[in-house]
């Protein structure tokens, strides 16, 4: 494993634990392969009072390559989140950049949830869930709506 990979992830982990963003908590980070974090729905939004779990899987090329990020367990109902946990968010795929981090991805997802006005699954949910590969990174995403 490269020095960049381990040093960067240890820095991120310490930072997340010592200085956690509101509503986000690392619950499992025993290895540098995958972490689990909980994400609390923000008060005053459609997801207030709900708690979700995000799983991050890191390739050895992190942060040059994006982490694989999915919801597990209780999947939020949201126009950009498929019921298999896959998230349609450009920074996780073609708009990834090494200056992004676990923290910034969590915050993006949190704000994606917070800005939601109508709790409904994506229109193509059934088709997608049937045909999608295990990793969302293998999906050919098209991002029409950057505003949500």
């Amino acid at each position, binding site marked *: *494993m490269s020095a960049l990979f*381990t*040093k960067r*992830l*240890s*820095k991120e*982990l*310490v930072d997340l*634990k*010592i*200085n956690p963003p509101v509503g986000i908590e690392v619950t499992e*980070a*025993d*290895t*540098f392969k995958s972490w689990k974090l909980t994400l609390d729905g923000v008060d005053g939004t459609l997801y207030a009072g709900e708690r979700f779990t995000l799983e991050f899987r890191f390739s050895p090329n992190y942060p040059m390559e994006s982490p694989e990020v999915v919801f597990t367990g209780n999947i939020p109902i949201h126009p950009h989140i498929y019921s298999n946990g896959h998230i349609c968010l450009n920074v996780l795929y073609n708009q990834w950049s090494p200056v992004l981090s676990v923290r910034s991805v969590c915050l993006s997802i949190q704000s994606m949830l917070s800005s939601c006005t109508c709790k409904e699954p994506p229109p193509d949910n059934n088709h997608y869930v049937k045909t999608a590969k295990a990793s969302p990174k293998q999906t050919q995403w098209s991002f029409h709506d950057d505003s949500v």
Partner: protein
Amino acid sequence: MELDDTDLEEFDVELPLEDGTKLEDLNDEIEAFSKLCKQMHSLDLIKRTNDALEEFLCDEIELRVQNTCKGTFDKPMLRHSTKWLYSTLYPWLQIIFSSNSQLSHESIENRLVAWSKRLNYHFCMIFCDSRISELFDVIVDFPDSKIAIDDLIVCMRRLDKDYRYRLVESLHAAFRKRLLIPGAGTMDIINTYISTIKCLRLLDSSGVLLEKITGPFRNYLRTREDAARCLVSSWMDEKNNNNELIEELGRTEEPIDNQQDVRFNDDNWLPDPMDAGPDYKSSIYRSADITNLLVSLFDTTDLIIKEIQNQMASYLLTKTDYDTEKELTKLELFKLRFGESKMSTTEVMIKDISDSKRIDSFILGNDNPLRRNMSGSSSEVMMLHGTVISRLFWPTLKGEDFDVPEQISNEMVKYDEGFQIFKPRRKLQWLKSLGKVQIELELQDRTLEFEVAPIYATIIHNFQQQDKWNLVDLAKKIKIDPIILKGKMNFWSDRGILKELPNDEWLLLETAEEVDPSKRAFASNEENCDNIIQSLAEQKAEEFKMYWAYIENMLKNLGGMTLEKIHNILCSVAEPTTSSSNSSFDNNLEDLKSFLNQMVVEDKLEFQGGLYKAKIN
């Protein structure tokens, strides 16, 4: 020299006795004794005195060990005593046995052999007990006492294993009573540990005994904050030429962290001895490497590495000639010892110094275009030289900022300009309190030269324009806290250059005044006390400050906690469980305790009933 029963026939009656008399001078006594024995024989009394005889001989042996062997470690007392047994004690036995005219020559010999075997064994026990009881002194005297160790080896070989445990116990007791006590200096403890290693290696090559006595040292040295500092400073010490630790440092096998307990490709591998304890690691205790044994007294090498960095920084920052040859040699030894990656920070520090040499000669040389332009004016000779360091690779350097004399601060600006040409896109920030200044003071009646820290040069420089300063005014002028300045003024008053007047006024002494010589002697060493590197304890406190917000929040949200609980949580927070991680929370409980107590003192925490609690505002 061995106590061998076959020596029996080799005794030489011609040998002088201990008190200078020869056996032949005692002819009259021998004759009288022989006569007495014969008479007793005829009365059949000899048999009845056997017990008394044995007791008497044993007493003689004990007296001999007590009076002659005890405390003498530099002479082969075992051989001397064997000689004494055969040349002085046993001849009397022979007289007794020979007095029985019915005994054949052969059976006299047999009896003599039987008795001498018993008495030899008794001697061996007494001698061994005596040596074991004084083993601590033998160790302290080592290597002058090597002969005493050799004697002990011979004796222990003849006695049962029980004596090994007796030795360990007795040594434990002696260490507890005489060495591992507050009054003993840490360096003495370390040196005694080294001698102990050497002695016990001789006594027991398996290392089992050594392993058994290492525990108390380890536990005790843990309570000594300066243990790592002492160890490292003896490695760094250049003045002491026959420094054993430096010699040992160079004798390395492989980096400590890479040592494995079992080496499958080790042709010399032996199973662990029967009486080895659970902590016994043959590779360490058997190997001849004293440095590794010393380092293994500490839980991790991190503390030692940090101490090396700190002491190396102190050494390097006092350099004005940029010569790092010695430090490089040390670095290579440390690399072999602790592994290259652990020493990389120290390597950068040393490289900074050699880079500084190049930077300095560029800036002051003709290649610097800024210099070329002004080479016409002779007044532009730069007094300033610099050491340019990579800030993140050095320990935290202490020191106040203040205004150096104008000439120097101008040169600092020029130096920075030159630097920016040599190293584009980089700039300098001067640490004004660090460095060394050579100055010459021309006073009315005397001219004096000094090599001083920049603050002292700055102070005295200001007395050039006016010979009397009020402390507060001077502090304002050089932009430093008056309280700090006051402490520094004494440097010059101790040297008879300044004189303190009432009301914080300081006067330059253009002509010398009588100074109490005792005071002056004291003053000459004082400057060395200025410690520029943050001590490890201070660094620890800084580290904890990082976690302070977290600790405070935790206590606010979760209520009061015990020291142990806080420590556990911090460990889990700060240390990702993946072993490859390099961020770690290696602070131990004691450090955390002193930090939390400090927070209590500063009124930021409360301590009640064993619990630390957040202050409720």
